[in-house]
C-alpha cells in the first residue's frame, strides 16, 4: 500500500531528473549515517537503563567543540575524532556515576535532570565558543571530490562518512553480539533484574554502555561537524533527530535505529529537494504512520 507511491515517485524522479534524484538519495544516506551514529548511542542507553538522556545532543556538541580544539592544537583530524569520542565518553561516564546512579528507575526525574543539564551545557558552550560557526580541517585524502556515475561530482568526505557509519554499525553489532560485555548489555536490555541476580556488576555494565553511547555522540559531533559545521543549536537538532529516529525505529534496538535513520534522513533530504516548504511534514508523517500502526516502533518490543 505504501510502496506504490514510493515506487511511483522513484520512477518519476529518475525519469525527470536522474542526477538530482540520485544526489538527493546520496545526501539522504549521508545524513542517515550521521543520524545513526547519534541515535544508536541514544537507543542503547535507553534500552538498557530506561533512561532518556535528553542531554545526548549536548554530548554531540561537546564532542564537536573538544574535537575542534584538539584538532586546532595538534593539527591532526584523527586525534580530533579520538578526542571527540573520548571527551563525550568521559562526560557520559561522569554523568552516569555522579548523577543517574542515584535516581535509578525515576524516569521523569532523570528526564528533567537531563533537560536541565542540556540547557546549562548549551549555554556554557555558547559562552566559551561564542556563536561563530566552526569548521574542521580534515586530511586532504578524504576531502576532495569523487566522480560517480550519473551524480558526477560528489564530496569524497560524505562517502567516507557513509563508510565510517557502516563500519561503526558493524562494530557495534559485533560488540553487542560477540563479546562478553555486549552479551551482558543485551541480557540487561531483556531483564535487568535477572542479570543482577546472575552475579553481574550491573553498575559496571551501565557505566560501559553510557560511556559508549555518549562517546558515539561525541564521535558523531566531530565527524558530522566536518561534513557540515559546528554551531550553537546543533545540539537540539541532533537531539530531536535521534528522538524521532528511535521513535520510528523502536526504542532500544540498534538495528531499528539504523532503519529509522535511513527513513528519516532520506525523507528529510527528499523533502528539502522536492518540497522545501513542507520538508518537515514528511518526517512528521513517517512518525505519525509508525505510531498509528506500530506504536512501539518498527523494531521495538512492547514493554
Amino acid at each position: 500500500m505504501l510502496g506504490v507511491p514510493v515506487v511511483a515517485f522513484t520512477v518519476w524522479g529518475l525519469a525527470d531528473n536522474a542526477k538530482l534524484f540520485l544526489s538527493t538519495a546520496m545526501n539522504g544516506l549521508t545524513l542517515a549515517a550521521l543520524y545513526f551514529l547519534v541515535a544508536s548511542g541514544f537507543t542503547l542507553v535507553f534500552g538498557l537503563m530506561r533512561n532518556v538522556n535528553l542531554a545526548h545532543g549536548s554530548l554531540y556538541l561537546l564532542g564537536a567543540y573538544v574535537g575542534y580544539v584538539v584538532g586546532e592544537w595538534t593539527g591532526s583530524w584523527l586525534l580530533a575524532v579520538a578526542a571527540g569520542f573520548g571527551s563525550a565518553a568521559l562526560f557520559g561516564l561522569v554523568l552516569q556515576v555522579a548523577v543517574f546512579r542515584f535516581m535509578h528507575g525515576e524516569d521523569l526525574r532523570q528526564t528533567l535532570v537531563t533537560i536541565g543539564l542540556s540547557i546549562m551545557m548549551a549555554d556554557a558552550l555558547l559562552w566559551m565558543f561564542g556563536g561563530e560557526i566552526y569548521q574542521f580541517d580534515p586530511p586532504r585524502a578524504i576531502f576532495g571530490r569523487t566522480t560517480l556515475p550519473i551524480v558526477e561530482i560528489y564530496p569524497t568526505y560524505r562517502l567516507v562518512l557513509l563508510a565510517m557509519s557502516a563500519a561503526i554499525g558493524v562494530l557495534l553489532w559485533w560488540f553487542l553480539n560477540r563479546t562478553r560485555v555486549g552479551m551482558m548489555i543485551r541480557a540487561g536490555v531483556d531483564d535487568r533484574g535477572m542479570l543482577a541476580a546472575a552475579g553481574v556488576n550491573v553498575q559496571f555494565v551501565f557505566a560501559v554502555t553510557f560511556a559508549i553511547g555518549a562517546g558515539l555522540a561525541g564521535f558523531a559531533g566531530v565527524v558530522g561537524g566536518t561534513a557540515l559545521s559546528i554551531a550553537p543549536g546543533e545540539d537540539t537538532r541532533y537531539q530531536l533527530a535521534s528522538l524521532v529516529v528511535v521513535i520510528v525505529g523502536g526504542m532500544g534496538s540498534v538495528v531499528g535505529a539504523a532503519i529509522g535513520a535511513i527513513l528519516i534522513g532520506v525523507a528529510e533530504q527528499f523533502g528539502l529537494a522536492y518540497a522545501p516548504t513542507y520538508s518537515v511534514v514528511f518526517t512528521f508523517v513517517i512518525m505519525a504512520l509508525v505510531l498509528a500502526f506500530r506504536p512501539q516502533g518498527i523494531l521495538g518490543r512492547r514493554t
Partner: protein
Amino acid sequence: MSAADWRKAMNAGAGRYAWNAGAAGRRVTTHPSPRPSPLRGEGEVAAGAWARWIGRRVGARHVLVLLAVLIYPWVATPFFTYQIGAQSLALGLIALSLTFLAGYGGMVSLAQMTVAGIAGYMYAIFATSGTTEISLRWPWGLAVVLALVIATVCGTLIGWFSVRTEGIYTIMITLAIGVAFYYLAQQNYSLFNGFQGFQSVMTPAVGSVELRAPMTFYYLALFWSLAGYFFVAYLLRAPFGVALQGIRDNPRRMSALGFNVTAHRVAAYAVAGAIAAVGGILMVWYNGLVSPGSVGTSWLINILIIAVLGGMRHPIGPFVGAIVFVLLQNFAVDLVGRERFNLLIGGVFLVIVLFSTDGLLGWWAQGRRYVQGQFHRGPGAALTQRRGQ
C-alpha cells in the same frame, strides 16, 4: 501517590460526588424522615452547606493571596504590573495546563506551548496584524473564538495522537510534535508567514478601554488565571478529575473498573488544550506578535521548567513557578547578565529537580511540616514527618 493517598482522594471525590448529586444523597443524611419539614427548605440547606464548605476550604492565606493579587497593580509600577504580573499570569496559565496533564493525568506533554502558539497564530491570522496580506481583519471577538476552538481541537488531536504512548515516550512524541510545528511555522510563508511570523498583532479595545493598558491587561490576565485555577481545582474533585488521577496511578485497574482510559486521557488533553489556548491568546496580546520563536524548543521547555519549578501537585504551582521564572528572566541581568540567563535558569531548575520532590511547593510543604513538628513535639511528630515524604 501511595495507596493510602489514593484512597483518600477517592473518598474525597466520592463525598463530593454525593454532595453534587444533590437531593438524593442529602435526604438520607440530613432528613431521616420521609417528609422533610416545611420549615427548612432545600435552598436554606444548600446555602448552609455552601457556607460550611467555604468555611472549611477557604483559609486566611487564600483571602490574603486573593487580596494581594487584586491590590497589586495599584501599588506596583506599570512595568511590574505588565511585564512581571501579567506575563507571570499568562505563562502560569499555559503551565497550568501542563500541571493538570502531568501532575494529575500523568502525561507530561511538551506541546502545550505549541497549542498556545496555535491559538496565537490563529488569532493573528483571523484578526488584524501588521501582515496585511494574510490577516483577515475579522472582528476580534470572532477571531478569539475561532482561535480558541481551533487550538483546542489541535490540543485534543495532539492528545489523541500521544495517548498511544506512555511515560517518557509521551514526552518525546509531544516534543517531536512541538518542534515539527515550529519548523512548519518557520518554513511556511502562505499561512504562518515564515520566519517573520506576525508582527504588531492588534490588541483589541472594548469601547474606549484599551486592553493593552497595563492595569486593564493585568486584570484580564488575572481573571482568566483565576478562572483557570478554579476550574482545574473544581475539575480535580469532580468525578472526571478523580477518575483521571486513578488512571494516572493505575490505568489497568481503572480499565478493569470499567473506565475508558483512553477517552479520559484524550478528554484531559482537550481540557488542557482549552486552558493553554486561553493562555496563548493572552500571550499574543501581551507580546503583540507571534513568531516561530514563540513556539521554539526553548519555550516548549520553559513551560515545563515553570511547571516543575512551582510544583505539580497543586494548581497554584505553575503560577508560583511563573513568577519565579519571570523575575529571574527580568532581573538575571543584574545577577549574571542577560547573556547567561539560560545557565542561571538551567541551574535553578537542576537544583530544584535534584533537591525537591515537588518544586518550590515541595519545599514549602517540607517547611510547614518542619514547623509543625517543632510545635507538636511528641511521639506523633516523627511519624507525621515520615508519612509526609
